């Protein structure tokens, strides 16, 4: 299968602002490959390097060494982001815009022609169930609605790859269920989804494959069922073992 997302020997270093702290290695020798149509879960404890990896993929951070490509194009080129959709962990949008205006803005950035633009806006707003609130400013939305507006903007260009940073964080159970439904619908449409999450149950439900990251290094990668089988426990316990967290109950 064609690799849509490919990371080769990626290393990211940060120069610490504190005196005497030197250089901090956020990612070290990461290799990863995600194929078309996969739902890929990116797991790891806080500070493991998940967000750094996403930031490299989105062009926010430059790699110290190694290479990351989307659709075979180096992520440092803006065109690499033409076919992706990104949903940040928290909703960060222009609150003085309505959902409709926000989507029109992003659609113009993707150079979606005018007639298609409007039909696309209608479709995604319907998909995320915001059609009734489309003319209201985003600042009047509830948190769940804002997250759905975020999902709508991530889908406006009909992306082939979706990068979701903890898409269900802070949502109520209904909100989570809706996001899960949308991910599954996208999978059924043949889209590739790359998402990070702390909700291991959710990952188990929707992901084809997962990668577990700890201290900037890839600790495990494979199908959820294989990892569970290998460790002979559920995903949560397997995760804790892989990252090296040990409790008396695990021992």
């Amino acid at each position, binding site marked *: 299968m064609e690799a849509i997302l490919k990371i080769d020997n990626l290393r990211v270093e940060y120069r610490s602002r504190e005196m005497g702290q030197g250089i901090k290695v956020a990612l070290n020798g990461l290799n990863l490959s995600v194929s078309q149509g996969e739902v890929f879960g990116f797991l790891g404890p806080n500070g493991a390097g998940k967000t750094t990896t996403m930031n490299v993929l989105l*062009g926010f951070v430059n790699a110290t060494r190694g290479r990351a490509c989307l659709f075979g194009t180096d992520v440092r080129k803006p065109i690499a982001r033409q076919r992706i959709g990104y949903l940040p962990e928290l909703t960060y949008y*222009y609150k003085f*815009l309505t959902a409709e205006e926000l989507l029109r803005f992003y659609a*113009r*950035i993707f150079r979606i022609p005018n007639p298609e633009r409007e039909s696309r806006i209608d479709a995604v707003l319907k998909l995320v169930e915001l059609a009734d609130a489309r003319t209201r400013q985003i600042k009047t939305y509830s948190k769940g609605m804002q997250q759905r507006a*975020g999902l709508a903007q991530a889908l406006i260009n009909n992306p082939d790859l979706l990068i979701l940073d903890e898409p269900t964080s802070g949502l109520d159970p209904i909100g989570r269920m809706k996001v899960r439904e949308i991910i599954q619908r996208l999978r059924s449409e043949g889209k590739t989804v790359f998402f990070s999450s702390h909700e291991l149950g959710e990952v188990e439900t929707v992901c084809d494959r997962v990668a577990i990251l700890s201290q900037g290094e890839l600790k495990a990668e494979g199908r959820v069922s294989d990892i569970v089988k290998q460790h002979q426990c559920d995903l949560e316990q397997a995760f804790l073992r892989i990252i090296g967290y040990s409790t008396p109950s695990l021992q």
Partner: protein
Amino acid sequence: MNTVWAIAFVVILELIRKKDFYVLFVLTALITLVMGTVNFFNDDNIVRYLKEICLLLIWISSLVISISTAARQVPAEKENRTIFPLLAKPVTRAQLLLGKFLGCWLACGLALVLFYVFFGAVAASREHAWPVAHYFQALVLHWAALAVIIALTLAGSIVLAAPSSTVTITFVVVAGILYLGGHLDKVALRTGGVAGVALHVIYFVIPHLELFANVRDLIIHNWPLVPWLVWFGALLYAAVYAAIFLLIAWLLFRRKALNI
């Protein structure tokens, strides 16, 4: 360019939906109208003081609008983290800066048109004349000066983290240029020595915004038009400085960490 226009359009919408502009316009109109009602020796035809006050308020308002709008663009994108979904799209940092600049500049242009129409109406109510060419020259020169100021503010906002610092420093710099810029060479000649040389260098390096602001006097005292070729030269002069400041802003911004 489509991306730049899209970003610019959002900036314009922001300005339209925020209250800053309306408050300043109402304040300008109110002060001008109140001053217009004052009786000076039973003479209803006195107009130049009114033109002076109105144009001064328009300049102050335009500086407040342009500097405060431009100063918060990039820091607000970072602070509200709206920059991340935006840069996750096929948008370069240069396009982002250019879009922000264009948005601020166009928004200020729209505001200026409204201000100058009001000014024209006030002047016409007493002078019974519409020197449209004069107003056009003054408006476009004013707008050109704002291009330099906005580009300067954007560059400042990349260096300084807090918009309030950018606003304050840019105001001081712009006010300094407007008030002292044209006289620095005289001071340099009188000062002499190293300080004199430094002042001379500053004189030739800074954008002489006072050229654009001085046009007010031509309008107030009904002087003839600025020769069109000279006028066009001034626009080019402003364009060069705006481009220089935008280039500096881009050089500072292109590798700058986004504080993730």
